């Protein structure tokens, strides 16, 4: 049974991807890509419903790959194909990529290897498909200028090699190359610790957690928006956090130190990425920092170690994939019309792009954790897990870390809200302060449809979080969880629709049956501007940026020396100089011998007999 599913999830898309390279017109390539991804999506739904037994595929005599779903990986598989399909639909109208000869080949291949990674039951097939995603990350990022692609390759490659080594050490400890489902290994010796840290590096690099995150903002500036929407915003989070879930719940039994490590890493990721996002002037870079910051929430969920914490981490992973990819795609929709991502050159677009505005509003409220959207529920669950941890654990040190994580998570939400007030003001409200006020034609439905679907999901998961908890989490973990305060889903839906209905009635009754430009006093982030001609959104929070302490911190964070990539490069070059010196030193006797012999040959003029010159 699983073999027939694999035909649609891997073999057929792979075949189509290979064929697409040889098709010259763009339209058939787009249609084929959407068709095979639709087939894969339908197949992923069937896999999730039927949960077929794993299948063993003989690769060569020493190794057979074992592929099959469990409740969590089936769910991940479903969303991989869902995001793949949405991105393909969106990309078929996105100017920067729709005509590219290789884009759809890369996209379909990306979904194939992501499917294989999610379905892997043994470590080797996981490493193989995981590593193949690295090559595809490079290929897709190279569609931009390519410089950031190499940085991404180096940092994520570091994570992948770490994962390989971590797996080797894990297999040494456990004696099996199969990924364990039940109780994992206790972290009671250095080899297991090393394995845990190395595997964690692999998951962190994929999910974009600190300190392995620096490739994401750079890539955001260069890569096409659909690539950012599918990679760091959705697939990387799904797979990276999926691996983290397997590490922290199946591979190892985490002790207090491991939990503290996760909590600290997650908290720092939230705060530092949130602070960096606050001062960005480029929409893509700002969103990239939020792709990083949100990963921190997921990590602290796993750091809580409790059932509700893990559920919160996984649910936040899903929610983040939905709204973050929605935000990137919305950014692309804006750029399609204004041809820029610079917040200084955008403004007043709500009247021209009302649908996109509503979608971005939903995404912004979701990412900021405002009810009744999905981000609120997962963050609420996270706060609950932090508070439970604070009271349940006995270690004073760990209590302190829980408190720090709780404060970081709440502060992170504030930073997020502040940043997205800036985004909404700069892009959709305020005034268009650019010299060229021209705007492109309206976006086609293929650009708008994914935004509508994703914003709809933000509402659905916000109102019905039990869809995830009851269908995925509880069957996978085999235990039940309860929220501190129940969420009346049906009542909430009714109230929401009633409010919307009343709003529409009010709008019509007020005699405004159409959209008009309205000038009004606006909230400008608490700033007091001293000029009257307008106030660009990028001036928001200038006082924070220029604050006496924060100014120095920002300067420190923007130094290239704090970038993981530069640190690694510097270290490798330093070691290389030492090794080169030693190697040359060992060859010194032969160097001296050659020097003496050369002098002798030159002195006695016999050189020409040995080495006659030929032009």
């Amino acid at each position, binding site marked *: 049974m699983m073999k027939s599913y694999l035909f649609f999830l891997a073999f057929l898309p792979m075949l189509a991807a290979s064929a697409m390279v040889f098709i010259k017109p763009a339209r058939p390539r787009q249609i084929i890509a959407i068709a095979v991804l639709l087939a894969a999506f339908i197949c992923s739904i069937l896999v999730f419903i039927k949960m077929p037994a794993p299948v063993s595929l003989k690769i060569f005599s*020493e190794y057979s790959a074992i592929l099959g779903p469990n409740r969590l990986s089936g769910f991940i598989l479903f969303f991989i194909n869902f995001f793949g399909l949405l991105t393909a639909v969106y990309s078929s109208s996105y100017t920067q990529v729709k005509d590219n000869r290789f884009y759809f080949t890369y996209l379909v291949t990306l979904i194939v290897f992501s499917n294989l990674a999610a379905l892997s039951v043994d470590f080797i097939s996981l490493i*193989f498909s995981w590593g*193949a995603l*690295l090559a595809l990350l490079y290929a897709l990022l190279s569609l931009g200028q390519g*410089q950031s692609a190499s940085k991404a390759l180096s940092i994520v490659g570091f994570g992948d090699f770490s994962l390989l080594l971590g797996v080797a*050490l894990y297999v040494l400890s456990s004696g099996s190359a199969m990924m364990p489902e039940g109780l994992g290994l206790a972290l009671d010796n250095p080899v297991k610790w090393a394995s845990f840290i190395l595997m964690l590096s692999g998951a962190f690099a994929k999910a974009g957690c600190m300190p392995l995150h620096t490739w994401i903002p750079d890539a955001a500036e260069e890569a096409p928006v659909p690539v950012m929407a599918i990679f760091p915003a959705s697939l990387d989070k799904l797979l990276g956090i999926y691996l983290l879930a397997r590490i922290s719940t199946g591979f190892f039994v985490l002790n207090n130190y491991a939990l503290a490590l996760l909590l600290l890493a997650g908290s720092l990721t939230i705060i530092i990425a949130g602070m960096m996002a606050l001062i960005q002037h480029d929409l893509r870079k700002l969103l990239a920092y939020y792709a990083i910051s949100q990963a921190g929430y997921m990590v602290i969920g796993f750091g809580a170690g409790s059932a509700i914490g893990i559920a919160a981490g996984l649910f936040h992973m899903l929610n983040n994939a939905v709204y973050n990819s929605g935000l990137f795609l919305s950014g692309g929709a804006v750029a399609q019309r204004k041809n820029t991502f610079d917040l200084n050159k955008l403004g007043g677009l709500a009247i021209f792009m009302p649908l996109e505005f509503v979608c971005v509003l939903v995404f912004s409220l979701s990412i900021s954790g405002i009810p009744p959207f999905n981000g609120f529920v997962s963050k609420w669950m996270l706060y609950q897990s932090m508070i439970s941890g604070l009271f349940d654990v006995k270690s004073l040190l760990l209590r302190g870390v829980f408190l720090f994580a709780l404060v970081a998570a709440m502060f992170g939400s504030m930073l997020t809200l502040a940043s997205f007030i800036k985004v909404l003001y700069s892009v959709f409200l305020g005034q268009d302060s650019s010299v060229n006020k021209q705007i492109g034609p309206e976006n086609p439905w293929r650009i708008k449809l994914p935004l509508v679907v994703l914003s709809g999901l933000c509402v659905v998961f916000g109102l019905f979080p039990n869809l995830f908890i009851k269908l995925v989490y509880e069957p996978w973990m085999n235990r039940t969880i309860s929220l501190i305060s129940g969420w009346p889903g049906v009542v909430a839906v009714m109230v929401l629709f009633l409010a919307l209905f009343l709003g529409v009635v009010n709008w019509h009754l007020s005699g405004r049956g159409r959209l008009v430009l309205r000038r009004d006093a606006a909230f400008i982030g608490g700033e007091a501007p001293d000029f009257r001609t307008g106030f660009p959104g990028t001036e928001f929070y200038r006082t924070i940026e220029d604050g006496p302490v924060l100014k120095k911190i920002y300067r420190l964070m923007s130094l290239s020396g704090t970038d993981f990539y530069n640190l690694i490069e510097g270290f490798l070059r330093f070691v*290389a*100089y030492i090794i080169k010196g030693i190697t040359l030193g060992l060859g010194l006797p032969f160097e001296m011998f050659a020097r003496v012999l*050369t002098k002798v040959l030159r002195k006695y003029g016999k050189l020409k007999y040995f080495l006659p010159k030929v032009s």
Partner: protein
Amino acid sequence: MNPIPFCLLLSLAAALLVAVSPRRFKPHLLVVSMLVNFSAALYFVGGLTRQVNYTFQLEFNRWLCLSFAVEGLNTFVFTVFSFTALLISIYCLGQEAWEKNHFCASVANLSFMVMAALFSTNLIFMFLFFEGACFCAFILNGLYSSSGDLKFRIKNIALSSLATLVLIFGIVNIYLNNNTLQLDFLIAKPMPGLLALFFLSAVLLKSAQALHLASKAGTAASCAPQAAVLNIALMTSLAFFIVARVLVLVFSQGQLFFDSLRAVSMCFIFSAAAFALLGSDIRNIIGSCALSQFGFILLCLAGARELSLRTAMVCMFANALAVTGLFLCADRIVQRTGKFSLREIGGLAKFMPYTATAFILCAFSLIGIPPFLGFWPKCLNVLSSVQQGHVFIEVMAVVGAFVTLFYLMRLFNKVFLGKVSACIWQDRPAPSDIVVLFIGALSLLSGLLPGWTYGFLRVFIK
């Protein structure tokens, strides 16, 4: 009719024909000569599939016996060598300018020497043909046609002569201990650990010297295809074969030897990687990279199990393809820009998209990124060696693979991305581009279908 002397004579005749033919026909005749070698390899593979044992013996006296045999390992190595050399010779069509260094004749002669050394089952003849191959390499490196960089060449001769002396000493010692030089009679005989180490060092020194000279920055005579030939002939084929066949498979070695082999492989990986990381000349970086990657092959051999040998063979095949591809890409770059230094080249991806694609495919295979062929040996070697308890060595090997990623991506960034500093016209798929693209595509396909690659190896390992 015995096919072994026939094939050897045919190869020799083809090499002589290349040597005496007019200059403008030489590149074409070189292709024919390589085709002859490759056909011979395929014939031997067919024999192995049908389980026919080809042997040839001509006894002069008790210790001097000219004997050849077609076995699994030597046929595999010769197949890979002749296939890669054929690709290089196709690439070199139309390059008459290289004839001032006797390029075609040297390559044809080198191929014959490699063939004879691989199939020889007598140590003294194996040594003589190996020396012959090294001599061809020296000619190929322009040793007798340029007085530039004299000091470096003299150092090269000194080191090479020292290695020859060590090899002679080793062979004499083996004869005195066992009273024979026939490999068949030496199977499972003990070899003193120190002697094995000297033997290993001498073989590696001689092979690495030639490649190092070919890719040396500032050497007037060096060109990238020549370095590619030397890499495939001396390092990837002969050095690998001698270490695997003579030192690992024939003689019974102790743990000391295998630990030393691991240490030597680490030296190769890291010292060459250091030069590659700090280098600024394309040929030099790729040459150092080739030496560094040879360390990974040695590391696979150090596993001393059947799986290790099979992994080493896949690693050798992957390296042969990828390094050849990188050298040929380097040659394309140098031909188009006339420059070797990274400081003078940049932004070429826009002008040379085919070369850039081939370069990145080969680089990914060499680094060991899935789904390329280079991934499988690296992954399997790490997993199996850690199981044997060699944790530290494998940690270092993974670090080495990461360093490879770092310097190859640095090279790609500097040459193909960034600011355009040198290039004149738009790239069109020339025959040479098709060759490098074919090599890159083969690395990808064979990695995607490892079952075929490993299944193919079954013909050679029983």
